[in-house]
């Protein structure tokens, strides 16, 4: 999308028409429904009252929502703080070539391909003190560990599960970035007597910048809409300790069938994501052109 010298051809619209229709059916139509619900009080299918922005105001004041949002932000930031350094370290430690590289690659990627509810199930089994290896081990060394009873234990378990699930993504992206560094760079560094840290700081890190940005934003957004794994593992409990935004919204929409507030909240949630997307998109465009210009000077 970055090359500017592509020919102008308005007929290309016909080529993207099928995509537009598909996504319009599954995105625009539903979105309009949400907007419609968010400004009405639906008492029954026949009786509905226009309430304006009342639901939005109510949702914005909802203390439960504030808590869920804070929990969500804390969780997403914690995810980034752990997964990024760990992923970079893993990428640096991975063998570059040969069957060892392939084997490590496949073993790492395995957790990414497991259905999200099975990820929950795996950890549910793994962390239980009576039948799980992790739970039993923690019990054995004298910790009174229980992810169903203690909120901070539950929170940490969800975080460790996410690290287990998604760190390979960061590692794989960084690994792909590292592979694009020409050998000549390392040779030059060796001649200059550069330290290991200098090589990392001035050669490897700049070259990984593009993929790291993708990793940061994918991880931030995907963790921002996490639903399935905590739903299976803890069900949002104990109490509300692991109820994140998606779970909170689902409870409101399907559990209590509170259409108006749920729709208003959906829109707010959507706008938050839209803002983040906008930042990501511009960032990626800029990195794309910066890399092209950089390549032109070399």
């Amino acid at each position: 999308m970055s090359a500017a010298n592509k020919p102008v051809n308005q007929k290309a619209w016909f080529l993207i028409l099928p995509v537009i229709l598909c996504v319009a059916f599954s995105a625009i139509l539903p979105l309009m429904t949400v907007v419609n619900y968010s400004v009405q009080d639906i008492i029954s299918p026949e009786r509905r009252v226009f309430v304006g922005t009342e639901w939005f105001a109510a949702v914005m004041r909802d203390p439960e929502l504030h808590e869920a949002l804070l929990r969500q932000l804390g969780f997403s930031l914690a995810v980034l703080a752990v997964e990024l350094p760990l992923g970079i370290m893993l990428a640096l430690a991975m063998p570059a070539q040969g069957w060892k590289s392939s084997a490590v690659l496949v073993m790492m990627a395995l957790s990414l391909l497991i259905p999200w509810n099975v990820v929950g199930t795996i950890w549910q089994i793994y962390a239980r003190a009576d039948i799980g290896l992790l739970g039993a081990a923690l019990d054995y060394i004298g910790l009174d560990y229980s992810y169903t009873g203690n909120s901070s234990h539950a929170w940490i378990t969800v975080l460790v599960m996410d690290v287990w699930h998604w760190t390979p993504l960061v590692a794989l992206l960084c690994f792909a970035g590292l592979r694009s560094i020409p050998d000549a760079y390392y040779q030059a560094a060796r001649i200059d007597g550069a330290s290991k840290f200098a090589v990392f700081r001035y050669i490897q890190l700049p070259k990984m910048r593009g993929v790291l940005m993708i990793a940061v934003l994918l991880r931030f957004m995907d963790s921002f809409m996490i639903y399935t794994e905590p739903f299976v593992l803890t069900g949002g409990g104990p109490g509300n300790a692991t109820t994140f935004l998606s779970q909170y919204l689902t409870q409101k929409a399907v559990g209590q069938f509170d259409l108006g507030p749920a729709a208003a909240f959906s829109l707010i949630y959507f706008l938050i994501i839209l803002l983040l997307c906008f930042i990501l998109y511009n960032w990626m465009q800029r990195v794309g052109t910066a890399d092209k210009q950089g390549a032109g000077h070399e």
Partner: protein
Amino acid sequence: MNEKRFQKRTLFLITYLVFAILPIYWMVNMSFKTNEEILSSFSFFPQHFTLANYATIFTDPSWYSGYINSLIYVAINTVISVTVALPAAYAFSRYQFLGDKHVFFWLLTNRMTPPAVFLLPFFQLYTTVGLMDTHIAVALAHLLFNVPLAVWILEGFMSGIPREIDETAYIDGYSFPRFFLTIFLPLIKAGVGVAAFFCFMFSWVELLLARTLTSVNAKPIVATMTRTVSAAGMDWATLAAAGVLTIVPGAIVIWFVRHYIAKGFAMGRV
């Protein structure tokens, strides 16, 4: 290369791989045990090795129909996603047109939208048009994030093919459909494979929409698995076996796309 540092790195990598594999191993281990053994003793290997849990799944329709339902909607979704994404990705990678950047951005937002936001309207929409509890409903709902993903991945692959090839073909008198199908498609078949794989995968792992839009006839395996509590307590062994079976398809295919995994996850941007 410093020998000591090399060892430290390898040690770190191995430690992580153990951390990564152990939870999966534990589930595989449990899937070969009986419920009595799981609850009564604690061992790294099954003491009374049994295949009964797998037999249960393959003979009980309420279990194996879950896999069939999942495969049906995943297949429908993958075919539609890749088919509509191919021409669109070509348009984005080759031409400029009015609003191209905005449409591309709009597609990206759909990949990033939490499915929970659309849960309510999907539920209402599909109830109204009578698609509830059908495979089509889930397949269409999953288009929301899979079509943008496929467009992004394919666009990345297509941009790697020099434009001179297109121009030469047009000069030689190829029509667009003929050029696209006989020359261009074979050139990007790796990209098509990767896009299909990622569509398959993201549809396969999704739970929220699949669970909400189905009840009986099209109930996917991921939803079946969330309801294994019976009067006798949790059926851990069968649950573990079902979990292992959901990993198998991904684990097999992953070998073929191992070089492209990073590219797929980065939506063609690597």
